[in-house]
C-alpha cells in the first residue's frame, strides 16, 4: 500500500467535512453532558486546518510537516480540552511521518499508535472515565495486536475502528469522571461522550480515506 502526502491531506479534508456535518450532533451531545460547545470547537479547529490546507500546506510534501501544522493550527484555534489533546496526537504522530512524503502501512500503524499514546499522556484519562480515551484505547489495542498478527494495516485498522466504535458506545453506560461532565454523577448515564464520538469520527474517516486510496 502507498499513502502519499496528498492522501494525508485528503484525509484531513475529509475530516473537515465530516466535522461540519456532525457539528450540531456533537454540540448536542455536549449539551447533555458538558457545556455544549464540542461541535463548535471541533468546527473552529478543523476550519482553521482547512485554511492551512488551502494555503501554506497546498504544496507541502512532508507528511510530518503536514501533521505539525495541523496540530499547531488546531491548538491555536481552539484551546479548550480537545485542543491540547488532538494537537498532541498530531504532534506525536508527526514524529513518525517526519521527512516522509510516502507512507507505508507500518508508518500508518505507528502514527496512530503515537497519536493515541500522545492523547492518553496529555489527558491522563483512563478507560472508563467517559472520554475520547474510551474510543481510542480499544482502537489502539486492536490495531497493535491485529497488526502484529497480520502485518496488514488495512485489516488491523478496520478492526481498530470497530473496536473504537464499541468503545464510543460504551460511554453511554459510564459515569463521567473527567472533563466538564464529571460533576454529573448518575445523570451522565445514558449519554454518549462527545469527545469519544469525535474521536471515532476521525478514526472512521481515516478508514474511508485509506479504503478509497486502496480502491484506486
Amino acid at each position, binding site marked *: 500500500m502507498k499513502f502519499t502526502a496528498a492522501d494525508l491531506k485528503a484525509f484531513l479534508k475529509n475530516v473537515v467535512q465530516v466535522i461540519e456535518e456532525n457539528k450540531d450532533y456533537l454540540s448536542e451531545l455536549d449539551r447533555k453532558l458538558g457545556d455544549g460547545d464540542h461541535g463548535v470547537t471541533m468546527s473552529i479547529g478543523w476550519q482553521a486546518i482547512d485554511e492551512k490546507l488551502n494555503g501554506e500546506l497546498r504544496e507541502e510534501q512532508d507528511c510530518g510537516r503536514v501533521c505539525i501544522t495541523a496540530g499547531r493550527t488546531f*491548538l491555536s484555534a481552539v484551546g479548550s480540552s*480537545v*485542543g491540547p489533546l488532538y494537537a498532541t496526537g498530531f504532534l506525536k504522530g508527526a514524529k513518525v511521518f517526519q521527512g516522509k512524503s510516502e507512507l507505508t502501512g507500518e508508518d500508518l500503524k505507528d502514527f496512530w499508535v503515537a497519536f493515541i499514546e500522545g492523547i492518553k499522556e496529555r489527558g491522563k484519562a483512563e478507560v472508563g472515565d467517559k472520554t475520547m480515551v474510551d474510543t481510542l484505547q480499544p482502537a489502539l489495542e486492536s490495531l497493535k495486536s491485529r497488526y502484529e498478527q497480520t502485518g496488514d494495516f488495512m485489516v488491523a485498522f478496520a478492526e481498530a475502528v470497530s473496536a473504537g466504535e464499541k468503545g464510543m458506545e460504551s460511554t453511554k453506560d459510564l459515569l463521567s469522571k473527567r472533563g466538564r461532565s464529571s460533576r454529573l454523577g448518575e445523570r451522565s448515564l445514558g449519554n454518549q461522550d462527545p469527545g469519544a464520538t469525535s474521536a471515532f469520527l476521525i478514526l472512521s474517516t481515516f478508514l474511508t480515506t485509506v479504503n478509497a486510496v486502496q480502491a484506486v
Partner: protein
Amino acid sequence: MKKLINNPNNVVDEMIEGYVKAYPQYVKQLSENKRSLVTAKETREGKVGVLIGGGSGHEPAFMGYVGDGMADGVAVGNIFASPPPDPILEVTRTIDKGAGVVYVYGNYAGDVMNFGMAADLADLEYGTKVGMVLVTDDVASAPKEEIEKRRGIAGEFFVTKAAGAAAEKGYDLEDVVRVAKKANDHTRTMGVGLTPCSLPQTGKPSFELEENEMEIGLGHHGEPGIEKGELQPADQVAERLVNDILADMPLEQGEKVAVLVNGLGSTTRMELYIMFRRVEQILTEKGIEIHRSYVGDYSTSLEMGGCSVTLIKLDDELTELVDQPADCPMYVQK
C-alpha cells in the same frame, strides 16, 4: 435566542476590539495575539505578574479584571473554552518583570492542559518561573473527598483579588502563590440556575428547565447540576446555598467572611439584593461577621438566569488583601 451580534464566529474578537477601544487607559492588546491583553500601565520591575484567563462568555470575568490590584494580563479563549497556550505565553512574557508570573485559573480539563503547556513553554523558552493556582470553589462539582476535582466558578474573583493585591504589595512569587492558594482554600461557592444561555454559534439553550424549575449546583457553562427541583422563594434558595457551603466549610461564631452574591447574566440586581438579604440574615444569626459584600455580575454565563453565593473566610492577611483598592475596567474598589 436573540443577540446583538454580527457574525457568530467573530463575537470574541469583536468583543475584545470593543473592550480595548473603550478603555485605552486600562488595557492594551499584544501584537502577536489579539486574544492577549495586558494592563496599559507600566508595571513595576520586580513585581510578580498575575495572569488570569479562561473561556470567554463570563464577562466581567476574566478580561474585566486586568488593572491595578488585580491581574496584569489575561488570555481570552473562545466562548466557554480555555485559551490555547500561545496567548497565555505571550502575556506571560510581557508581564514577567523578573519576579515570575502566577497563573490563576479555574480547574477545568481544558484550562489545566493549556495553562500547563504554556507554563512549560514559558520555562523552556524564556526561563520564566510560573506559579500555578487552580480555583476549585464550586462545592456542587465534587464531594469533599475529591475536593481537588472541583471546578472554579465565581470564587475566582476572590482568588484573583488576593493574588493581585499581594503582588501589588510586593509579595514574592512563592508568597503570592501561597496566599492565592489560601484564598482558594477558604472560598466556597454554590450556584442555582433558572434559565439557560445559548452559544452564539448554536443558538440552542444550554439546558432545559420547566417554567417552575430551578437547578441547584448548575455549572458555570450550563453543565447540569446536582439537583433539579421546583423553584423556591428566594429566602429558601439562599438558605439552601448557604447551608451547603457551611456544611462543606464550617464557620464558627465570630469568624469573618466576605460575601459575593453573583448574577449569572440575566438575573436582575433586585433579585441579587433580595438573595443577599437572606444570606446576611443567616450569617448574622450564626454570629458570623460580614466584613465586606459584593453583589452584582462578577462572573456570568452569557445570559444565563440564576445566581451564586460565595463565601471567603477571612484571616488577617486575607482581610487586608480583600480591602486593598483595585482599579480595573469592570471593577473598581477604593
